[in-house]
């Protein structure tokens, strides 16, 4: 972490960048938030630990409109989102100085709570070069749990430790993959239509339409969003009926289909713990199956699968034939 702060100070001092985009301590020690830093004093609040899961690529859309360069810290998986935003002309590569930061998987406080650890005051050992066991200070004394058991779901299906784009890289990354990416989707597909309907009904009923998933998504970057229209009755929960409840998430996932890099931010920020990645990954799985392997953000030149075609694409009736 000190290395990152030193780098930021150096680049601010020599005028390469005029601001730094990173994370600062939040209200709770395990809840850091994205922030801009403009002076050396500001940087005292800078943090980078296991809870810095937030993907900073989307903030670069606003930063690209400002004067001067911005130093942005990106984890390996965030660089896919950044690439995708370059491809869509939403961020300006020239306005960004990208420092790739190391990552050994990010933590989810809920995963720690699920293990029966209550009254959490702080978590220690979350740094990049920290130990494999976390020490959790609680009201009821110190508790421990393994780093891997507290990781975000998305880190168990890690896309890899390589940065897709970076001006320089600080810190060693680790590939934390220990599960198959599409297993959760396959489990749902294996159910009968009734079971699937009930499963999603139950899952989506929890939605409070806070729009956090939309706001955090790096692929959801339209200036005017369809869900903000007051002609469309889904602007607020009060208007929402069962249809909107079901369809909001389908529409949202469809809008990012073929552009979603599977960064997992939607599931991370959902206050209700809805498994939103089940929708995005279903589209990714279908695209891989029907139109060939495609990873959004891996290659800036590649055409997106839904803005492309071949003469012998599968017919939509495949859905029925597949059963």
């Amino acid at each position, binding site marked *: 972490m000190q290395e990152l702060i030193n780098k930021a100070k150096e680049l601010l001092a020599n005028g390469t960048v005029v601001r730094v985009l990173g994370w600062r301590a939040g209200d709770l020690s395990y809840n850091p938030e994205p922030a801009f830093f403009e002076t050396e004093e500001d940087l005292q609040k800078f943090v980078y630990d296991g809870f810095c899961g937030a993907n900073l690529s989307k903030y670069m859309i606003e930063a690209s409109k400002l004067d001067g360069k911005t130093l942005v810290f990106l984890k390996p998986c965030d660089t896919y989102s950044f690439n995708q935003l370059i491809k869509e002309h939403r961020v300006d590569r020239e306005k960004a100085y990208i420092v790739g930061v190391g990552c050994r998987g990010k933590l989810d406080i809920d995963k720690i709570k699920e293990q029966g650890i209550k009254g959490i005051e702080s978590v220690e050992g979350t740094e990049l070069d920290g130990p494999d066991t976390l020490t959790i200070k609680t009201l009821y004394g110190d508790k421990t749990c393994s780093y891997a058991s507290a990781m975000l779901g998305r880190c168990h299906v890690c896309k890899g430790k390589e940065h897709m784009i970076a001006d320089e890289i600080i810190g060693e990354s680790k590939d934390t993959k220990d599960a198959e990416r599409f297993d959760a989707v396959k489990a*749902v*597909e294996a159910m009968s*239509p*009734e*079971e*699937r*309907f*009930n*499963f*999603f*009904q139950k899952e989506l009923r929890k939605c409070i339409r806070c729009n956090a998933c939309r706001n955090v998504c790096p692929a959801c970057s339209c200036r005017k969003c*369809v869900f903000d229209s007051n002609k469309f009755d889904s602007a607020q929960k009060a208007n929402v*009926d*069962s*249809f909107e409840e*079901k*369809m909001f998430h*389908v*529409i949202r*996932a*469809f809008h990012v*289909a073929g552009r979603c890099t599977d960064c997992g931010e939607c599931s991370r920020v959902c206050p209700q713990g809805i498994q939103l990645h089940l*929708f995005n990954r*279903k*589209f990714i799985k*279908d*695209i891989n199956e*029907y*139109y060939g392997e495609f990873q959004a953000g891996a290659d800036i030149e590649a055409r997106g*699968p*839904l*803005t*492309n*075609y*071949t*003469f012998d*694409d*599968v*017919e*939509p*009736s*495949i*859905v*029925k034939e597949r059963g």
Partner: protein
Amino acid sequence: MSIGANEEFRPKIVAFCCNWCSYAGADLAGSSRLAYPADVKIIRVPCSCRVNPMFILRAFERGADGVILCGCHPGDCHYSTGNFYARRRMTMLFSMLDYIGVENGRTRVEWVSAAEGAKFSATMNDFVAKVTSLGKNVRLGDLRCKN
């Protein structure tokens, strides 16, 4: 208008037909005196690619029991490539609807050219029969629009 309990169920079908092929195909079916059920409500669109996936969801929301999209055969699009994009888009959408548990017989894409009046009529008869057998669309309806 309400549907009595003892009345036979008639599905509401929305058919998006492309102006250049399928709409003309429907016209040919009419002028050839080929029957297809009156439950099918045709919406003319400039190209099958004009159909935003939201149109289909909206149709279901407003009470449709089945939605069918008809366009030119792949390769014959009036705008050269429109139906290729529509094909990918609809594959994705139908797969997702199937995934969330909506019966996959309620959605269909069929390529009907302007010369295929008989195919248009046969397709519509078949689709209406299929949707009728599936019954009322309860999984995707919007409660406010019911009767």
